[in-house]
């Protein structure tokens, strides 16, 4: 009978200890290998070839944009490991609609600083319209870095809602709502999730909560109206529709400080002119005019900028400067109906009615449906004593824009002065349809009804 060597026996024993010397060797070898791998990875990470910032064609960009992008590119080239530099370049590219290049920058920024949720969030925004799955992954990444990132979570919830992933959407939106109980956005989205999920009562409750928090949001009342209609409560539906229609009809937009930060980096002419318009609308004429003048020193290619400046100067009473701007503009952009219109308006205020008429006619020749130019032409014709053409122009102005109430009243006044009261009444009726409750029209209607039909009209009717 032979005996087996102890080593073999031991080697089959799962519970037994391995021989000491080979074990130490294996462990030591493993540590060395592991350390080498880690060190290689760190070395590669730190000394990997730096990625270059994307090149964009700046040949058509204005000098401001070109300088902005060039400067940020140089900062990235100088500090390729700086996440903030990549992110800044990304935001500037995104602001000027180089989405693909911006996405690349945000990706680099996120790689360099994985704890900053802003970069995957902005990356998500660049791909949102083209690749929703990727956008959802990036939004989750952003939320993962900062769980109270409400804007990102709301966006994710809405994205999932649009993709009909209602349960997932609801889960995100409930968290968003709990984190910010006063926020309207998750409430409205939760109402929509419940509606699409076939739970109209719950949808109504969420929407009512939203309406209670902010009764001025048209979308909330529109949603309530639809829910009420679907559940057979027509009276409530009509009530909600009436409220909705009394509120401004603006696109649904939510506060987003990060997107606002991107927008604030825009330097293109159109954006600047929009800012100027905002300043003018807020009554800050001096800053608005200054900004418009600055824009024109850089770029005379946008006729609208001349037009806005001309109007602003006219509104502050500087008719002489307005005329200089608009005359210059009409030479540079003879095909711009808007400039001729504005020039006509300024000439009208200067009392130069024949010249004003010519400018309005130029505007109308270029744009036959230019309702305001037709209306102003009518006014000018009245000043020139030509009521026949004034009436025709008023009629054309309301034909072009049926909501132009002064067009109806202007025409009605001429008709009344001629004794054609029933024709005037018809126009005023139309004005009341497009603008129910308009007090000027109502007053004119009342005055008209208090007077009897003229003999000429009675005669015409009997004919």
């Amino acid at each position, binding site marked *: 009978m032979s005996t087996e060597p102890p080593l073999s026996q031991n080697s089959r024993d799962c519970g037994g200890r391995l021989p000491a010397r080979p074990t130490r060797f294996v462990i030591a070898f493993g540590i060395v290998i592991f350390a080498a791998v880690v060190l290689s990875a760190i070395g590669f990470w730190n000394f990997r070839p730096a990625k270059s910032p994307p090149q*964009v064609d*700046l*040949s058509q*960009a204005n000098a401001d*944009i070109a300088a902005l992008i060039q400067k940020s590119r140089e900062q990235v080239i100088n500090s390729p490991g700086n996440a903030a530099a990549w992110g800044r370049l990304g935001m500037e590219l995104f*602001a*000027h*609609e180089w*989405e*693909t290049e911006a996405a690349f920058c945000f990706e680099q920024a996120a790689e360099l600083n994985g704890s900053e949720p802003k970069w995957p969030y902005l990356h998500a*925004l660049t791909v*949102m*319209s*083209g690749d*929703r799955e990727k956008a959802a992954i990036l939004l989750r990444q952003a939320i993962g870095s900062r769980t109270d990132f409400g804007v990102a979570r709301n966006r994710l919830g*809405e994205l999932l*809602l*649009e*993709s*009909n992933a209602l349960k997932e959407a609801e889960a995100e939106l409930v968290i968003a709502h709990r984190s910010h109980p006063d926020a309207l956005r998750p409430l409205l989205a939760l109402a*929509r999730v419940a509606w*699409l999920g076939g739970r109209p009562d719950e949808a109504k409750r969420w929407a009512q909560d939203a309406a209670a928090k902010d009764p001025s949001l048209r*979308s909330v009342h*529109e*949603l309530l*109206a*639809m829910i009420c*209609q*679907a*559940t057979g409560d027509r009276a409530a*539906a009509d009530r909600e*529709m009436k409220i909705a229609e009394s509120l401004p009809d603006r*696109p*649904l*937009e939510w506060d*987003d400080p990060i997107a606002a930060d*991107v927008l604030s980096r825009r330097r*293109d*002419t159109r*954006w600047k002119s929009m800012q100027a318009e905002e300043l003018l609308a807020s009554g800050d004429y001096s800053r608005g005019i200054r900004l418009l003048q600055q824009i024109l020193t850089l770029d005379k290619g946008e*006729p*609208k900028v001349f037009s806005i400046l001309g109007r602003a100067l006219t509104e502050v009473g500087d008719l002489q400067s307005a005329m200089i701007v608009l005359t210059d503009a009409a030479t540079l*952009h003879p*095909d*711009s*109906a*808007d400039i001729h219109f504005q020039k006509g308006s300024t000439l009208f205020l200067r009392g130069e009615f024949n010249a004003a008429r010519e400018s309005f006619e130029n505007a109308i020749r*270029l*744009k*036959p*449906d230019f*309702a305001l130019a037709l209306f102003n032409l009518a006014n000018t014709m009245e000043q020139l004593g030509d009521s026949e053409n004034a009436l025709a122009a008023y009629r054309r102005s309301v*034909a*072009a*824009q*049926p*909501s132009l109430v002064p067009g109806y009243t202007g025409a009605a006044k001429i008709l009344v002065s001629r004794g054609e009261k029933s024709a005037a009444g018809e126009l005023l009726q*139309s004005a009341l*349809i*497009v603008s129910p409750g308009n007090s000027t029209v109502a007053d004119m209607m009342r005055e008209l009804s208090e007077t009897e039909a003229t003999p000429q009209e009675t005669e015409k009717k009997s004919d």
Partner: protein
Amino acid sequence: MRMFLVFALTASLLPGCGSGVKDSSAEPAVSGQGGILRFTSVATDRGLIFSHHPGKERRYYFPEIMCAGAAFFDSDGDNDLDVLLIDAREETEPAGIAGTRSSCRLFRQDDKRFLDVTESAGLTDHGYGMGVAAGDVNNDGRPDFYVTCVGADSLYLNLGENRFQNISEAAGIQNDRWSASACFVDFDRDGWLDLFVTNYVDYQPFAPCRDGSGRDDYCNPAIFPRTTDRLFRNVTANSSDGSPKFIDVSVAAGIAGRAGAGLGVLCGDFNGDFWPDLYVANDGHANFLWMNQRDGTFRDEAVLMGVANDVVGRGQGSMGLASGDLNADGLPDILVTNLEGENNAVYASVQGGVFTEISRELGLFGPSLPSTGFGVVLEDFDHDGDLDAAVANGRVRRPGDADQTASRSNGKTESGLDVFWNDYSERSQLFENAGSGGEFAEQAHPDDQFSRDLAVSRALVSGDFDNDGDIDLLSTQIAGPVRLYENQTASKGNWISIRVIDPALGGRDAYGSVVSVTADKSRVSRYANPASSYLSSCDPRVHFGIGGSDRVDRIDVIWPDGVAEEFPEALANQFLILKRGEGKRP
């Protein structure tokens, strides 16, 4: 259309054009067993040679990225479809509205060939044409047509013997706005076709628009004020000499109370009261659903009925429209084509008169996201008893990664496309319906040319131009040749094609009728009105695929005034003309 601020995101039922209302209690004749869809381009072979001229090419004149329309209609009463194509004007012309190029071209079909008869037909008016609607405005049995334009529109009266006359002014039609799609509809059910016209934005043709980086591109409509649509009531009955007369009732009917950016229009009965309603696709703004109040007025109930916005309450860039019963529940649904990044939306009617969006359930959500859809038709291309879909695509803005030098070059691509327009081109799409309310699958035969050709496609018109019983397609493209596609889908089922006319109305097509056929206990309905899709007018006949059935057991017609008639059984695979008064009152 794409929002100006990219971050804001972060912030018919029709005969030719397809619509169907299926009896929910019945099974489809043959469901989802159609052949693989295949269309072959035959325009040149058939003599339909026309290339659209957008006018001010490369100067980013906004209207050129939105045009142009087309119509299939039998202009000469010889029982085959002729083609009307809308054109713009020469590039060398001044910026004013008037031009020297005719705003439309008429091709008469004779011996299976198309012949350009524009000049002899008297269609030599100028203008920057957009869309077309066809319909008989004076009840003489001859179809007339209306051309929408950038500037004054034109109404053409069919004088017979292939002659037309522009009667816009005499008829009291005045619409100087930039108008898009239009439709003829007898909204007051007085027997005379009225006219609804969508108006787009209050455009001022100043310098090219630029994107955020300063690159020239077509404008975003959001920067222009919205306008109101127009409704013209046909008052020819009161005309002393019988000549067509219209009055603008936009204000009185309530239509002028809502401003939008109208591009598409669809006529249908969306609440089953047998009065025609109107659905309007607005670009970047809530769509309208004008519900007929039966007293000469309309009320916009799009929000109430859930067809105004997308599921998160945003207005979309809506362009084209089609209607039909897509989920086989017996109720009319609406298909809206939208901008890239937005899905083509299917609104399905549910109980309570409210619609819900079911694009995802039907498989039409994902495939539509990368493209910008314009013309759209719903037709049973393979005769399996359910409606398939075709969508004409083409971008409106240059992609961000486009080669910047391309916009300034004059060459052609390998596929023959102008380099300038290549950036805007996309492939169109075909979707086969799996039936029984199931999913659509984007599919086409490997040799299909409709979905293979790259183009900046706009109008899409459906109709059986070769009278072989199946539905063919015609699509227009900007700055390119018209494309006529013959349906060559193999293994199709049986079919029946029906034209409904009213002898008391001069024998004109009875727009607004609902035609239902029952075959093998399956009942399918179509709404007769050729206006739908985008800037288009389709074959006025209603077409039914009936699968393996060799006959239809009965045909029911509900005429536009709500009167019903039943017509006897008929063999499959034939064209029928049903005349009002010849059926049996149930």
